[in-house]
């Protein structure tokens, strides 16, 4: 696994900050927020990549490409894969995208529309497509197998992990780089502000006083590998992907179905795919955006899907720490869940002080929860009710 977020630009620093309850939400400096109603976001302010020659040689990379390449490098390194062991045609990639390189394209058109076309370098357009990060990583690692870029924004990267799982289940690849990368940009920042679902004081998932999300950025990459293939090279197996589901609420363009039916159904279908009962679930990393509507609907959905058992397991949202990273949220949260299962620690839900009575689950609040957690669910829900649930189990070598 590899990760880049506002609270840490590698796996160790990310996890350390997460369980200590640090928040990466602060003032945005990437663009001018003076005329916005809100000013905050979980922006990545430092990133080490001096050791990646590719990045230093290519000036066309967008922020999303940078984050993706840095976390892919960490993931490959941690997996112990070396380039000469893989068959390039059996090596695939499945990433989720949100706004991709739009931040760069914005910089280009800003100059054009402000009448300074001579100052608009065409190189800013290189990453215009949502699959650019996928293509860059493929090029760097000589991937010649399947490439997938999922574009369901808030649920993209969790869906991408699901599609990656199916690439392996369907014998289309032995190894898949799965996850996603996304960066802040003005279009999404202003859009979520215009929808009035950004919390001016910072995101507080499930809290009584929550007002909305904080946007974030970053990348999360997981190396998926066919079981026998991993065994044959004596890889350290961290976790097993048990199953996933994707379905639609068909309810509203931005609001979730208030009865939690969409959330319930996707978790039930994922448990069916994973062949587990609700009582096997030890923890949930929620979508938990901090919007008034999502957090209630998700809580109801969890109670409907897991019944009484829902009240006996720790539940968290890490969006108060890293913000809502849109196209990479699902992957970063899935990584957080894997670290929970491996280390036996559910991170605190940063921002949450007093839960909304309508969100009556067993949330971690100001400190992490220790215990033996074997199986967990990670949820990602997108605009239009494009919901995804992934079920992961710890792997005891």
């Amino acid at each position: 696994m590899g990760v880049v977020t506002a609270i840490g630009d590698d796996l160790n620093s990310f996890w350390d900050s997460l369980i200590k309850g640090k928040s990466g939400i602060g003032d945005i400096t990437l663009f001018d927020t003076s005329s916005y109603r809100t000013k905050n976001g979980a922006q990545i302010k430092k990133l080490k990549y001096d050791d990646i020659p590719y990045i230093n040689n290519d000036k066309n990379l967008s922020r999303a490409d940078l984050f993706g390449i840095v976390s892919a490098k960490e993931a490959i390194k941690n997996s112990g894969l070396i380039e000469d062991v893989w068959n390039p045609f059996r090596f695939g990639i499945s990433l989720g995208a949100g706004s991709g390189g739009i931040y760069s394209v914005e910089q280009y058109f800003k100059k054009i529309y402000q009448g300074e076309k001579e100052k608009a370098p065409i190189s800013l357009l290189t990453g215009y497509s949502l699959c650019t990060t996928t293509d860059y990583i493929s090029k760097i690692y000589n991937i010649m197998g399947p490439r997938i870029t999922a574009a369901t924004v808030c649920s993209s990267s969790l869906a991408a992990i699901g599609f990656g799982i199916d690439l392996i289940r369907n014998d289309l690849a032995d190894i898949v780089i799965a996850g996603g990368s996304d960066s802040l940009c003005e279009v999404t920042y202003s859009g979520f502000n215009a929808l009035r679902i950004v919390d001016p004081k910072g995101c507080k998932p499930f809290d009584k006083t929550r007002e909305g999300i904080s946007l974030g950025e970053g990348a999360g990459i997981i190396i998926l590998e066919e079981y026998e293939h991993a065994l044959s090279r004596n890889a350290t197996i961290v976790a097993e992907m048990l199953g996933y589901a994707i379905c639609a609420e068909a309810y509203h363009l931005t609001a979730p179905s208030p009865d939690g039916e969409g959330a319930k159904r996707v978790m039930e279908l994922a448990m069916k795919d994973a062949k587990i009962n609700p009582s096997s679930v030890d923890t949930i990393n929620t979508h938990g955006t901090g919007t008034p509507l999502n957090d209630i609907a998700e809580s109801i959905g969890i109670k409907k899907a897991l019944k009484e058992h829902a009240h006996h397991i720790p539940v968290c949202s890490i969006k108060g720490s890293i913000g809502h990273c849109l196209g990479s949220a699902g992957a970063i949260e899935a990584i957080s869940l894997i670290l929970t299962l491996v280390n036996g620690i559910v991170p605190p839900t940063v921002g949450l002080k007093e839960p909304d009575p309508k969100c009556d689950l067993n949330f971690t609040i100001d400190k992490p929860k220790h215990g033996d957690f074997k199986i967990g669910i990670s949820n990602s829900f997108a605009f239009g009710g494009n919901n995804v649930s992934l079920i992961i189990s710890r792997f005891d070598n």
Partner: protein
Amino acid sequence: MSKEVAITGIGILSPLGIGKDQFLENLSKGESGISIVKGIELINISSKLAAQIPEVNFKSYIPLASLRRMDRISKMVVTALSLAIKDGGISLDKENLEKIGIMVGTGLGSSYTVDTYFRLLLKEGPLAAPPMLFQTSVPNAICSHASILYGIKGINATFSQKETSVEMAIIQGYLAIKKGVADIIFVGGGDEISEPLYHIYSKLGLLSKNDTYPEGSRPYDETRNGMVMGEGACILILEEASHAKKRKANIYGYLEGFGIASSPVDILGYDKKGDGIYHSINMATKNKSPDLIYGSANSSLDLDEGEAHAINKWFNKRNGQVKLTAISSLLGSFDAIGGLKAAAALLTIKTKKIPPTINLTKQDFSFSLPIVTTPIEDKNIKNVLTIGSATGGTTITLLFSADL
């Protein structure tokens, strides 16, 4: 018993007309959909051709209450969906809507909306930014509109993989039906020509323009000098075969195989050596050999060359007759063209009509197989392969068959 995947409906919005009949009629005559671009302002842009869809009266296809929330790309794809549902004779009220899904591919679906929104933001500031416009500007808005309008609650996904975006949606739909998560999946997608997108393609040097040779779409031709931008939308109904037979659906053909591979080329480069294309063709043709190939050649120097290498290499190990045609000569090239290509392949299987590759006067490559350059009918066409190959190096091939 393993599940088979039939295609039981086609909905099309193309530069050659609305609906499958108009599309097929013009396509099989070799009519070109390319002309001088209309409705967008081209400042400092050296190209001027495009393949645009005709004016559409969207009100005839989509209820007004839904229509007013959609931007143009959503209107285009949802119109194609409504045509497909009608063509496929599906009564949604008789179906289990949790077992019906939609999977769509789009390169930059809402580029026009994002641009309009961004210009407003720059000019008037954040307070003027309209939330209604933003919420329909996300790539998955197309699928959201479609699922809300028709109440379809099954698998729902959006893909963006340049010129293989729709093929990606088609193979994911195929895999989902095989897995049993849905009885019916609407697969397809669309892309539109917008001012910013035309600008980007032109500045990145992808478009044909008047230089030594004139501007135009001339796949496989020695004088080709870039693509002509097109637009369109297409939805196919993928249906689990026993479900289709039970409701006595009209079956166009079956999706019997696919190939997906890639070459690690430059972000804006095509698979010039054809390694990924070759591997992808081999994957799709493992069990059945095609009688006809719809190529991905789009009049760009490198893609046409890479595809020629790959097809030659593959064909040299085969026996028998295979024909080749490239409809980007008629429709231009765009990210979601794979839907129109797949529809054309299925219509060829049904009617035996093969559309010609027009504008081909001086063939650039020594192909081992004949390129169709005039409209013909061939009664022997049973299996058709489509190739989609994108900048950045992804190739997806689809093998459609008349019978299982």
